């Protein structure tokens, strides 16, 4: 026993190094899975407020462009309203199932294989995990951690991101993932080889998951090829969103999510 203690005292620097290094390693490995990095993430109070302070300075640099984007979206929505003014839902059941919360991006990254965004809305604004995040152009990601005032988004530019999407024309669905290379291009897998594809076809969300409503634009087909076993396509999708340049986003809350969950539980 004495010798053991002596050994530790003699090599205490190395022991501390080993301890802290393995600590860092385990944090890294844990963070590679969806829903696991709860402790060290940028949605906590300290990091959130620091990013908030600096964001209030840096947002002035983009004001002109952001105004333009908002104006464009406004005019698009106005035309939608004008063209269907006298359409009222027949039944309360047909009324909207989704609430939208506008939010600002405090921190964005796109150069790593696993990217996350930090938003300025949290539990106090009734934001929870698994809510979807979109912009006026397309989808951004899914919320995976929240604190009282901030939340963290698992970006579609994350190698562990999986989103259910479909081809707008033919309604065939597949899973959108990212290979970690270009921030403009994501990969759509699991589309069967009997589906007719053409370059430029639009990809939209499928609505099969409770996170995103159906028919939110995602991207367009850039190129496609068959996989090794030649029964499924691997489609390169050019994203509509420029993920490198985001500022205003919307968080989608599915108001029927509890009902859907209850149904799923009763299935099992």
């Amino acid at each position: 026993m004495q010798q053991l203690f002596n050994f530790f005292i003699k090599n205490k620097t190395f022991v501390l190094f080993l301890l802290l290094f393995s600590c860092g390693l385990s944090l890294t490995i844990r963070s590679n899975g969806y829903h696991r990095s709860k402790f060290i993430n940028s949605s906590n109070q300290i990091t959130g407020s620091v990013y908030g302070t600096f964001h209030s300075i840096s947002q002035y640099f983009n004001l002109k462009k952001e105004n333009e984007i908002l104006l464009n979206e406004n005019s698009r929505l106005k035309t939608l309203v004008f063209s269907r003014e006298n359409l009222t839902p027949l039944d309360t059941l047909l009324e909207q199932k989704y609430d939208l919360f506008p939010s600002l991006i405090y921190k964005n990254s796109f150069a790593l294989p696993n990217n996350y965004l930090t938003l300025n809305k949290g539990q106090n604004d009734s934001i929870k995990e698994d809510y979807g995040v979109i912009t006026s152009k397309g989808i951004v990601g899914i919320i995976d951690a929240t604190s009282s005032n901030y939340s963290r988004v698992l970006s579609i530019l994350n190698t562990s991101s999986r989103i259910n999407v479909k081809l707008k024309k033919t309604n065939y669905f597949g899973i959108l993932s990212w290979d970690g290379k270009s921030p403009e291009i994501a990969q759509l897998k699991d589309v069967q080889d009997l589906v007719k594809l053409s370059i430029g076809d639009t990809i939209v969300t499928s609505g099969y998951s409770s996170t995103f409503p159906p028919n939110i634009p995602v991207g367009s087909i850039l190129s496609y090829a068959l996989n090794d076993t030649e029964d499924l396509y691997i489609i390169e999708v050019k994203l509509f969103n420029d993920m490198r340049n985001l500022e205003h986003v919307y968080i989608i809350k599915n108001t029927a999510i509890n009902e859907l969950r209850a149904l799923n539980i009763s299935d099992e």
Partner: protein
Amino acid sequence: MNNIVLNTVLRFIGLVFLQIIICSNINFLGYLNPYIYIIFIFLYPITNNRLLFIFLSFLLGLSVDMFLDSGGVHASASVAIAYVRPLFLKFSFGAAYEYQAVKFSNTTLSQRLIYFLFLIVIHHAILFSLVVFDKNETLLIVKQTLYSSVFTLIVCLLLTSLFSKKEL
């Protein structure tokens, strides 16, 4: 003595902020960022209390990790170079280190260059192996390590000479 402690604390906070607010948003050529926060580890006073030094390096890396949502990659890489630092101090500064008389303002540019270069390459190699975490992508790791090391080295040398007290 108090002056040194204050200096160290200010440098710690300043470098973390500089890293997360500016240096991690450069994205030169789409993906290259300098990781300048490790200047803290380069310039930490040479003491016998290596335990505190290694622990501070871990905290430094962990706070950067927290802001950049990268798990524990910066913490691991920082701890590693903090542990091997004495080896490279001896290698680059030679006898001056033996007598614990190294003052960074008194060293020559080539000495500092070699010292920085070795630690930066080790740091970036560990960092990018953990960030990519895929043995099929070794080429990508090597590429990122090389390019980012050059970028970091240039920015580190500029920053340290900008804030050094001696006229160069």
